[in-house]
């Protein structure tokens, strides 16, 4: 086929396709080739056949600049010569303006490294343009014309977005303005997403187990970042893994999705708040190394216990939030009746018994502790001037549920042992209450038993507390 056989031109200047453009089969003509075709006709003495252009009529077209087959040509059709939307599908590599500038079809070229036959879709005025290209076009050269102006008005200010969002691949999109004509580029990049193992159907099912809602919520993840504003909540059902949730959201935001996400069709959902940076490859955040780096603004709830550490959030204000590591300290090799004391090491061979300085009034059951550490056990033991107490909770810098009620203290040294008790009957180890890991530290632990019949040589050693907790084993040397 040639351009002369694929097109007709009537006496009114209407350039029309003989048959519809078939993506993947029909070959496009450059705008330069259209110009050359018209000019070839324009110097004929008389019009002939079905292309009614000759020297009898006005000049049918002009280029901005000289003919150059190596660069896109901006072609203007004069004065009544015109194409329609369907016929525009036959052209690429440049732009076509007509109707005294009232209509403009601008070239679009997709650049970048994409998975073979990555499907491309284009949105204009928040709607998908019906495809007149084949997925395989990206394997060679994706170049088309897109209508940018109609009846003298730019369509959506000339803005379009080129997307590639195939479930199973990383996503990509690029905003392009077509107002200038010529050929504009959209840089896209896709790759196979190794985190996608569910079928599309299974991902859609997983999507049905979760809710995604947009509403302000101020939450404290407990990782030490405090209460922070989030603009939406992803609620899991407690049995959907984070890996599955990630895949469900990738499905929901893929080209084929019919889901509504945050009030917009999933296939054009980009981010929760206009002020945020986009996660182009995965709108709800990337998944790497078994961890979900959730996109900014989302609060996540309903996470399985097994996944409690496998994600991180970013607050509305941009603060990265990590889930707390809950750890414990354990001392083994003990028997019922042994007394075990575990506390922070003072670095000089002793217990740090001056961790805090506190004051209280007789009868108090709460205590203000300046500088109370975030890695204080949720409940446990307290010693003030050597006197032991227990407590049931703490928040901020206040320890509550102290028992027995406090005596009067005035600026007395105090510390919070991790373990400070007698090993109960039948036990062979003692474990502290859980506490939030903050940083590595060293504990000193002592195991003693002077009771007749089970007396041991006092044992003392140190253990390291890390993100996985800490443990030590007593060596019970009989002292009888």
């Amino acid at each position, binding site marked *: 086929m040639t351009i002369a056989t694929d097109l007709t031109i009537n006496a009114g200047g209407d350039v029309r396709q003989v048959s519809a453009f078939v993506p993947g089969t029909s070959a496009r003509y450059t705008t330069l080739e259209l110009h050359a075709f018209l*000019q070839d006709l324009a*110097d*004929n*003495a008389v019009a002939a056949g079905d292309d009614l252009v000759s*020297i009898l009529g006005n000049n049918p077209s*002009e280029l901005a600049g000289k003919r150059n087959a190596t660069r896109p040509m901006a072609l203007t059709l004069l004065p009544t010569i015109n194409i329609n939307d369907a016929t525009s599908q036959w052209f690429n590599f440049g732009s076509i303006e007509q109707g005294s500038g009232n209509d403009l079809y601008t070239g679009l070229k997709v650049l970048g490294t994409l998975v073979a036959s990555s499907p491309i879709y284009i949105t204009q005025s928040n709607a998908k343009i019906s495809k007149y290209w084949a997925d395989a076009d990206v394997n060679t050269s994706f170049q088309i014309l897109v209508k940018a102006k109609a009846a003298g008005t730019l369509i959506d200010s000339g803005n379009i977005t080129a997307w590639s969002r195939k479930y199973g691949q990383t996503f990509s999109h690029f905003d392009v303005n077509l107002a200038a004509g010529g050929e504009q580029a959209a840089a896209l990049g896709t790759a196979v997403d190794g985190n996608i193992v569910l079928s599309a159907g299974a991902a859609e099912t997983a999507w049905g187990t979760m809710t995604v809602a947009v509403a302000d919520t101020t939450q404290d993840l407990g990782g030490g970042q405090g209460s922070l504003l989030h603009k939406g909540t992803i609620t899991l059902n407690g049995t959907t893994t984070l890996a599955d949730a990630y895949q469900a959201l990738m499905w929901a935001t893929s080209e084929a999705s019919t889901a509504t996400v945050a009030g917009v069709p999933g296939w054009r959902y980009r981010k929760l708040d206009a002020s945020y940076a986009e996660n182009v490859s995965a709108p709800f955040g990337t998944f790497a190394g078994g961890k979900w780096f959730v996109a900014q603004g989302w609060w996540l709830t309903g996470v399985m216990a097994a996944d409690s550490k496998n994600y991180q959030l970013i607050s509305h204000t941009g603060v990265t939030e990590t889930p707390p590591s809950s750890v414990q300290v354990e001392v083994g090799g003990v028997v019922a009746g042994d007394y075990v004391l575990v506390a922070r090491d003072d670095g000089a061979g002793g217990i740090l018994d001056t961790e805090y300085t506190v004051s209280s009034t007789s009868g108090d059951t709460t205590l203000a502790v300046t500088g109370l550490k975030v890695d204080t056990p949720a409940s446990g033991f307290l010693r003030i001037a050597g006197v032991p107490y227990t407590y049931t909770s703490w928040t901020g810098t206040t320890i509550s549920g102290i028992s027995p009620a406090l005596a009067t203290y005035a600026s007395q040294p105090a510390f919070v042992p991790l373990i400070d008790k007698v090993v109960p009957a039948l036990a062979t180890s003692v474990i502290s209450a859980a506490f939030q890991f903050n940083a590595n530290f060293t504990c000193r632990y002592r195991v003693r038993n002077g009771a007749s019949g089970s007396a041991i040589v006092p044992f003392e050693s140190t253990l390291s507390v890390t993100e996985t907790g800490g443990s030590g084993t007593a060596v019970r040397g009989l002292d009888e």
Partner: protein
Amino acid sequence: MSMLPTGNFVRGGYATGRIAHVSFLSLGVCRVPTDPIGTTTITFTNVIDGSSLQIESQDGSTTLHNSVISGTTKSVTLQVYAPGSPLNALRIKVRKGSVAPFYQPYETLLTAVVGSASVYVSQIPD
């Protein structure tokens, strides 16, 4: 013709105009705008070899000449009509879009007068 008071009147048989009663004693022929009054030779210079030349009335109703120019100069002789005739208002088109090197269409206007005229054609590469 010399017996008539003006050039607008000739004896019968000289022209194709309509017969008119000029006076009680004589008959003549009154020219109409479509009657030529002479010729003009238009010489085109600096033409790109192989260009198509079209000379037509400005109202587009009549093609007066069409040819493909060989060489860089071309002379065309056309009839000239009575002043006011639309056939004297010429549109000249020179195009070369079929064979490389290509040139942008060149177009100019000219009013034909008896005698000669010269048109310098300035074609711009396309």
